[in-house]
Structure formats: C-alpha cells, structure tokens
C-alpha cells in the first residue's frame, strides 16, 4: 500500500512533468505561428492581426506607408515586390513560404539568453533616407506587431503590441 508520502511524490512529479510538457508545447506553438499562419491577401484574410503583421514587415521591406490591418492594393503590390526580390512565386498572397521568409528577417534585439519584455525583434532595411524598421514581439502565447508612429493608422495604435493571430486588431494579452 503506497504511503501518503509516495502519493505526494508521485503527484508532485506529475505536476512538474505536465508543466514541462506545457512549456515545450507552448514554445513550439510560439515559433510555429510564423510558419502556420493563415494566408493573407486576396487568397485569405484581408483584415485583422495577421494583416497588421504582414503590413508591418512590408513597411520596412518596401516602404509601404500605411499599416492599418486592412488589406488593399498597395499592400498587394508591396507583397509582390517582396516576393520577387526574395525569389518567391509572385502572386501577392502572403502564404506560408512568404511568412517563413518574413520570419527569417526578424532579429532579436536582446541577447538570446534573455527574455525581453515588449518589442524584442526587429526587421531592418537600409534605405537612402535612413533605415526602415519594423518591430515585433515574441510572447509565450503569440507573436505581436509593434508599429512605429507615422506608419500606424487607426485602428492600429503605435504604442501597443498587436496580437498576430487574432481576427481583430487587438492588443496582445497572453493568458487572457
């Protein structure tokens, strides 16, 4: 007959194991959001957090001037230019291969040992008038877009981290 101490040890071990599994799954999902996002553009979503993320990257890559979470002809032209330069099929659709290419451009601002709060990744392009940057945030639950003032347009606020995987333009809140 197991003693109370044995039951406690077994229960504690199970809880620790469950926490480890949850952490691994969450980490895997976190990095996967960039390779398993829905298509954005005429082929998929035309509004929401994923559109904000794509537009944010395109603002740095091509000079797209408006990040408002609503897909338009400028966003599509910018996508086509991004795809052509990166050797992707040019169809104006931010599909999986385009998402993966965008993700590879994001560089951690903080040293990889350390977990920064808020915007912690940046995509930087040199440009004649000065560099163009896009900021992103990797959180436990999702990635987020942090759009610079001058580029962000309502309903996208420039001082908020916008959840990437939400249908609407909403500030990221992990665990909520």
């Amino acid at each position, binding site marked *: 007959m197991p003693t109370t101490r044995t039951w406690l040890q077994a229960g504690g071990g199970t809880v620790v194991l469950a926490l480890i599994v949850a952490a691994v799954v969450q980490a895997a999902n976190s990095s996967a959001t960039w390779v398993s996002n829905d298509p954005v553009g005429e082929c998929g979503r035309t509004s929401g957090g994923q559109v904000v993320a794509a537009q944010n990257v*395109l603002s740095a890559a091509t000079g797209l001037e408006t990040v408002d979470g609503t897909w338009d002809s400028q966003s599509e032209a910018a996508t086509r230019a991004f795809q052509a*330069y990166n050797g992707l099929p040019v169809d104006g659709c931010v599909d999986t291969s385009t998402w993966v*290419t965008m993700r590879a451009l994001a560089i951690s601002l903080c040293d990889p040992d350390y977990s920064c709060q808020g*915007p912690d990744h940046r995509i930087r*392009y040199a440009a004649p008038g000065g560099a163009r940057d896009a900021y992103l945030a990797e959180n436990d639950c999702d990635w987020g877009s942090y759009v610079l003032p001058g580029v962000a347009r309502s309903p996208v606020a420039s001082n908020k981290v916008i959840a990437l995987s939400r249908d609407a333009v909403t500030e990221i809140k992990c665990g909520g």
Partner: protein
Amino acid sequence: MVTTIDEPKIRPEWLLGGAVTLLGAIIIVVVTMVLGAGEDEPVVAPADATELTANTCAADLRQPHWVPDDVLKAVAECPAEISAGMGRTTAEDHLGTWITYTLDGAENAETFRGRPGAGWPEEEVRGGAFHPASAIVYVAYPGSEELSGKLSGDTVTVEWQDLTESGLEARVTRVDNNGFGPVRVEWTDDVGSYLLLATIGRTPTANAGPSVAELIRIADSVAAEDE
C-alpha cells in the same frame, strides 16, 4: 658707308597679347584647381573593416575585420540608440549592438519609386525591378552564450559550417527560395554570441547582396584577428 642697325622693338600689341595669354592660362589653372577641389575623393574599401566603425560607439566591439569590396560604409547602433529609436523604454543592458553594412553598386541600390501601388507596373514588379537596398546586418550580443531559436519551415535549411580561421562553428540558416532569400549566420565565442543577416536578392539583371561564402568569411574574420 654707315650701316644703321635698328634695335629690336617690342611692339605694344605683342605685350598686350602676351598679357592676355598669360591671364588666360592663369584663369584656366585656377578654375581647374577650384573644380578639382570640389570633386569627392573616390571611396575605397578600407583594408580592415573595423575602420568603418572607427569613432562610433561600436569601435571597441568585437566585429568583422573583413567585408566584401562592395561595402564602403557602415552604420553602428548601440543599445542606447536602439532603445531610443523604438520610442519605448527598454532595458539596455541586454540589447545587442548592431552594425549595418550597405553594399555599393547598381544591383544593390534601392529602386522603389514612390509608394507601392498603381505606379508600380506589375511586369516590372514581377521581374524584381522594385527592390530595397542590399545590406548586411551584424549584431553582437556581448556576454551571451546562446543562439536565437532555430527556425523551421519547408523552405528552411539549417546546417553547421566550420569557421576555419577562427576554429569556431557557425549555424547557417537559409530560407531557400530558388536560390534567393534570407541567410542567417550565427555563432558564439568566449565573449558573446553573434548574428549576420543578409538577403540574396533577385533583380532583373543580377543577384543582389552578398553570397553565403562571403557571409561565412565575414563571420570568420570576427574572431580570427582578435585572438
């Protein structure tokens, strides 16, 4: 018989002509010197790439000693500048230091004209005529011992390559879109961890950006000459 020899006379018109000629010559020399002084000295790649960041906040940073000949200038950003540029207060003690090397040459220059949209003919866009400037981004994280999270995806390849001069090993991550796309080279040493990022770009006439071999050589030059 008396012979009279006239002494040669300097005729006034000769004097005038000589003066005008002399004045013209002086004007030509002066104008040439003034115009010559206004021309820029040809920019050449420095023998050691660290000269590109001399007198910047990154001057004492462990950084590349070699960059491709196309690189003629670099912009350094240190944690305080990065934090300020974001427009949001961020702890600076864990931020990396960035050096952006821009590449010279027509194929590496930005070709955007106006904002994306109707003014960008689709066929030209499709051919790669509208593209950003090529650059190599180098980031150093002093004190760090880890690399960034490993990327995944159907078009992503990850392999380790030896840095022969420094005796280190670098992780090379490519998003291989038919030979084009982003390339990340990451490694660590006894001082910190490092990242190089560039895009092998497709333009109508040639590839833009550095080759993978050049990125490896840049990485190898960071530690090789500091040890």
